[in-house]
């Protein structure tokens, strides 16, 4: 692989204290050097002009729902990976609720093979805590770990009894893997479609009390500390939940990007809009602001909350609509501003929330953009402020919580282990996803 030079680009990596303009030399899969801006590049290197752009460590999605295997008509695995690349994600963990579910080593290996054949070796399946058939029967966590699974979860929402959760954490801890526990408390959240508040009362919709999430987070913290398992709790959508997890070395927090961008007032402005049928539900503005601060402080990781849905699952009554929508492609565009003065995520906060906090929670110290670290990066430019529309989506799912929000940034280039996975054509203002063979030839 030829050298790649990102020329004259602002590189932001708070974990390694880096925030300046450089020429970044990438050799093979790793970052080889940082040189002064506009240094002469090697003659055989491919040069990408990074003027007015910012390079961040490659975003990691810890809880990405794939429809394939299982329902490729909703979105194929290849379409999900394309959406990830277009959206700037260099590393995604597939939730285990595919069909077949990833609850055994064979299923894990099969999905890993598909993920890595079609893209890079950075994407990986996560394993289930319990088998698909019986939520009280532990999955083969040990064997899956030996097959390379490093993250286990009940995401995106399979409710488990606390005794099963405890044993699952003990098993994950013994395998030196990471557990992602997904709330909320099912009995308090049963059938809820929005947050419990004056808004739910006005709309007549069943509301989820924030205590449903807080209770599960507190239980998760206690069990994580007892089991000594590296644990993440998500999705965090309220200040109280973030507070319940704060200060513990045993557990981290993960939130959905929409919890940082939208609050329940959106339901007043767009009542019964199925794009806002979300789990966790939209909370108060104060919760949104507190979570942004927690992300800036490096306390909370961010997932885009990708949950593709078919039209017949969304074009129904609001309370019956499948939660979520397409998120990988639009979350960063809506959430990250390349300017430092912003009410959403500035480059430093984005680097933490999208990449370095998730990596830390996984026990991975290589997402710091140091010389020798894997060259996983996303390059962003200033957005045009135009409301995001379904036309910006490449996948069949036309629903997204981020539709209508202003585009704060463009994903210009997505690079995983030195390979350009996506590059937006700035001249034509179009974009292209590069399958591995083409990507390799371009680099």
């Amino acid at each position, binding site marked *: 692989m030829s050298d790649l030079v990102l020329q004259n680009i602002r590189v932001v990596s708070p974990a390694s204290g880096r925030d300046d303009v450089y020429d970044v030399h990438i050799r093979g899969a790793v970052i080889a050097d940082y040189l002064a801006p506009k240094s002469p590049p090697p003659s055989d290197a491919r040069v990408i002009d990074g003027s007015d752009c910012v390079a961040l460590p490659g975003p990691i999605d810890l809880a990405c729902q794939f429809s394939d295997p299982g329902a490729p008509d909703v979105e194929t695995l290849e379409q999900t990976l394309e959406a990830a690349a277009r959206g700037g994600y260099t590393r995604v963990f597939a939730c285990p609720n595919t069909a077949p579910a990833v609850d055994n080593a064979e299923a894990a290996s099969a999905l890993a093979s598909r993920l890595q054949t079609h893209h890079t070796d950075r994407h990986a399946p996560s394993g289930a805590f319990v088998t698909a058939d019986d939520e009280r029967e532990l999955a083969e966590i040990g064997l899956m770990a030996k097959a390379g699974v490093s993250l286990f979860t009940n995401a995106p929402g399979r409710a488990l009894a606390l005794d099963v959760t405890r044993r699952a954490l003990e098993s994950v801890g013994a395998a030196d893997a990471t557990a992602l526990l997904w709330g909320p408390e099912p009995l308090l959240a049963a*059938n809820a479609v929005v947050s419990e*508040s004056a808004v*739910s009362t006005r709309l*007549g919709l069943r509301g989820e009390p924030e205590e449903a999430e807080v209770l599960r987070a507190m239980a998760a913290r206690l069990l994580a500390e007892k089991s000594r398992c590296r644990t993440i709790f998500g999705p965090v959508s309220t200040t109280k939940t973030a507070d319940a997890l704060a200060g513990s070395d045993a557990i981290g927090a993960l939130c959905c990007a929409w919890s940082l961008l939208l609050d329940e007032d959106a339901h007043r402005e767009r*009542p019964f809009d199925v794009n806002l049928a979300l789990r966790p539900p939209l909370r108060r503005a104060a919760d949104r602001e507190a979570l942004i601060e927690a992300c800036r402080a490096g306390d909370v990781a961010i997932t885009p909350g990708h949950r593709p849905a078919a039209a017949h699952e969304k074009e*129904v*009554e*609001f309370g019956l609509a499948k939660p979520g929508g397409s998120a990988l492609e639009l979350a960063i565009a809506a959430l990250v501003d390349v300017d430092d003065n912003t009410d959403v995520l500035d480059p430093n906060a984005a680097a933490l929330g999208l990449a370095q906090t998730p990596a830390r929670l996984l026990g991975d110290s290589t997402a710091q953009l140091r010389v020798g670290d894997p060259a996983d990066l996303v390059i962003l430019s200033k957005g045009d402020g135009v409301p995001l529309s379904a036309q910006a989506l490449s996948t069949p799912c036309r629903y997204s919580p981020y539709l209508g929000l202003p585009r704060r940034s463009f994903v210009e280039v997505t690079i995983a282990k030195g390979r350009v996975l996506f590059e937006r054509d700035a001249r034509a203002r179009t974009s292209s996803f590069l399958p591995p063979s083409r990507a390799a030839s371009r680099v």
Partner: protein
Amino acid sequence: MTPPMAIEPRTQAAPLRHLLSIAELSSPQLRDILSSARAFSDVNTRARKKVPALRGLTVVTFFFENSTRTKLSFEVAAKRLSADTLSFSGASSSLSKGESFLDTARVLESWNPDILILRHSQPGAAHLLTTVTDAAVVNAGDGPREHPTQALLDAFTLLEHFAKQQAKEQLPDEAVGAAERQTLAWEDGLRGKTVTIVGDIAHSRVARSNLACLTKLGARVRVCGPATLLPVGLAEEYACEVFTDVDKALARTDAVMMLRIQKERMAGPLLASDREYAALYGMTTERAARLGPAVPILHPGPINRGVEIAPDVADSARSLILEQTKNSVAVRMAVLYLLARGRGAAEAVA
């Protein structure tokens, strides 16, 4: 016999496109409906209770939940306006074969109806229906969210009651034109009145619509019920007073609206027993006796006698329950007429 009132817009209300919620009605539109209902009330007392206002138009009742009063009174209202009516019941439709709500709606739409009257268990269903039909849509109850025509007929019933009761307390001639005095006073009859709604507030679309409607008409509203049946944020959302002690809630009230306990919508442990509920929140004979002698009692029905209201209270002179059902036809005639007029399809009525 009183001469028939002409149904003409008295205000500058915007044309009524749909009736989805009280919250979305402007005050002029609300007043327009109520004053029109007063005129249609007269039609219902004639020997021939029919006017040609909706001749040639098709009105469909599109009900996915059980209903007696609402469905029948809409059908009576439509027939008295000379509309062709069609009745759809979810239980006996292709929905039981797996057809979606919107696909069923599209089938109805293909027959080009003029007004669709929808009852559905899901909040927002009427909004969704407007996305696939050119017809005017009336929300006849969407889960616990809204039931606007019930609130309109409740307000109408109270206005009529207070108009009779307060005939001597009209505004002075210099405050308004003498010609308008009677009508304006009637419409302002709820201003400053205290109306107390008691019962299962959490599951009640009637409560939500009445909160919106009564406050728009200038009434002070109290709501009262067991803590488990009071949704969060009521006071801030509706500018009402919230009580869990019914006797405090009923003190110095001008009218009482009792609600049914909607067990069919309840999930989880919300109530101990009918006996406890009746004792703590029911309109017992003793509680009714402690109300002022002129305080009326309303109930949207159906009534659970002996639970939320004692049989002798339901049948007493202060009960306006049958007045509500009687007025329901006039109010729904007004709504259908104004929707048709909003589409430019109504014929003049005299």
